[in-house]
């Protein structure tokens, strides 16, 4: 994607932007890290390609406080996160120049990323300009987004419990899922707050992992755009996005279709209501008990 680099260089040169938030080339084809470029010399290491799996929206929260405009490269799914942050007033639109970068599905050493296998589409939710190709507009992946959630729903409660115990017991409480999440923008997380009574740094018992992951997913319910970063970064390979997707699926079914980061309404399903909402008892009537 030479076009993106060239455009970034020219925006940097004419002073439209002060810095570029993009990716930096690393040791090999799959090794690239988010980085900040402030001049042409630094831009020499700029790279955009199939290794750019990381969602840069989270960095925008911090970067928005810097002086002058920041150019940020966002993939279609990343723009949803960015727009959701706009809804939440965590970033200022004026502080950023957004290049919507076309995406053909991101890879790591093991092939297409899981989040790209269930691609949500190639529309940009927010941008100043788009740089892409025809090929980038085709959806990637073949997996239906809710396929695995449905599979779990069809299990018995005991099977589900066994499945999640198996997955969550591997958690090492490194907090990568929380720290990478563009929706997790609390200044002080309840799990870091000694006064909360639930602060903990280690998976002492099974319960603590449960509690952490339930609250983590629940706290972003309605704001989670399903960007899939939580599962991508997990060093233990726990499919955390399946918890978030369950919440999304429930919200869609009970309160109408909703995609965080789309639309102009700042109200999420959990910060709004109708008088005719289903009673909580409805969960007793659905699926397997």
């Amino acid at each position, binding site marked *: 994607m030479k076009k993106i680099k060239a455009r970034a260089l020219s925006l940097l040169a004419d002073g439209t932007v002060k810095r570029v938030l993009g990716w930096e080339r*690393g040791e*090999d084809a799959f090794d690239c890290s988010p*980085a*900040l470029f402030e001049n042409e010399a630094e831009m020499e290491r700029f790279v955009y390609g199939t290794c750019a799996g990381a969602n840069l929206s989270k960095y925008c929260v911090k970067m928005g406080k810097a002086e002058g405009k920041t150019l940020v490269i966002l993939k279609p799914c990343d723009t949803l996160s960015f727009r959701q942050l706009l809804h939440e007033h965590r970033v200022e639109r004026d502080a950023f120049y957004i290049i919507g970068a076309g995406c053909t599905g991101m890879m790591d050493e093991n092939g297409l990323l899981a989040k790209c296998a269930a691609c949500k589409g190639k529309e940009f939710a927010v941008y100043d300009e788009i740089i892409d190709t025809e090929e980038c507009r085709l959806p990637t992946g073949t997996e239906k987004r809710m396929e695995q959630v449905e599979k779990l729903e069809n299990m018995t409660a005991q099977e589900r419990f066994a499945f999640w115990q198996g997955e969550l017991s591997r958690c090492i409480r*490194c907090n990568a899922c929380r720290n990478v999440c563009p929706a997790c923008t609390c200044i002080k997380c309840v799990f*870091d707050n000694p006064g909360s009574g639930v602060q903990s740094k280690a998976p002492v018992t099974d319960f603590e992992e449960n509690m952490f992951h339930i609250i983590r997913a629940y706290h972003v319910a309605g704001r989670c755009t399903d960007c899939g970063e939580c599962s991508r*970064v997990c*060093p*233990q390979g726990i499919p955390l996005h399946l918890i978030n997707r369950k919440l999304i699926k429930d919200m869609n079914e009970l309160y109408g279709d909703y995609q965080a980061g789309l639309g102009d309404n700042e109200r999420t399903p959990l910060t709004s209501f109708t008088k005719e909402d289903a009673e909580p008892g409805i969960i007793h009537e659905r699926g397997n008990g």
Partner: protein
Amino acid sequence: MRKFAAEKLEQLLSGISMPVYAPVEDGGTVIYGRYEPGMRLRLDKLGTDRTPKEVLFPQWESLMHFKMEGKKIQLTEEERANEDYVLFGVRACDMQAIRVLDRVFLSDPVDTYYAARREHGTIVGLACDAPGKNCFCKNFGVDPAQPDADVVLWPAGDEYFCEAYTDKGHALLNGWDTLEADECAVTAIKEEIGKKYDALPFAHLNLNGFDGEHLMEKFESPQWKKLSMACLGCGSCTFSCPTCQCYDIRDYDTGNGIQRYRCWDSCMYSDFTLMAHGANRPTQLERYRQRFMHKLVYFPSRNEGMYSCVGCGRCIEKCPMNLHIVKVIRALGEGEKE
């Protein structure tokens, strides 16, 4: 030097009367877990998802219990480990990591919780017949072909060569049904490993200047800002690292007493040094710098040049944003070694 047929390995492990901790699969990841006959051993896995450090220094352990009654306190210590066990299949890098932990926990005053576990374990090392692209152990004086363990195994096709180096090792090996073997075969294996290692991308990093004498120079390097920019401040590098040993001590009110426990902590966390008057490493830059400075400069400065990085490559694999120690060494160091 002794040897035995590779197919007999599981039988040998099952025959050990003590608990055996070995690299086994746990839902897609490989951990050093309690081995039971029939489990699939993953001796092929380099940089296991969880490290053997956990056997000696678990992520969580109870230290003591308190009963509070009015103004009185009653203290009960947690019992120290007292069961012999075997830690099997430890790579040279992880073995060196255990030496690093020894430096910390066994130096005066001795940490008796760690010491008890260390004392009761017999460690069986495993030579790396196929070091991978993330390996860079030799930079830190680790020989992938010669783990510094009680017993060492060298895989060679359909057999394993083995040798015991300590009393504990001999005691273990004597119980095994092995055959006399020729030293030369192992020498050839070691040479082969050395050649494979030399062809790796990070095989020869330049560590000049990573020592106490250049402490301030490295500390003040302008590179840290760029290096740390993308750091999320998570603990995946710390918790995947075989040498990271920082811990926290906390109290938990169980409703019928107070349990004081210790758990791993990470210098990458914002509350690591937080005190009533603030934190002395307020931003991620300082915290990021602390972790790498500790491994590459502070620790060797205190420990006769022994680095607390062992080149296992786990942080290269685990960092969500691909920030890792090789990048730090290259950015701060003096280029490639000739």
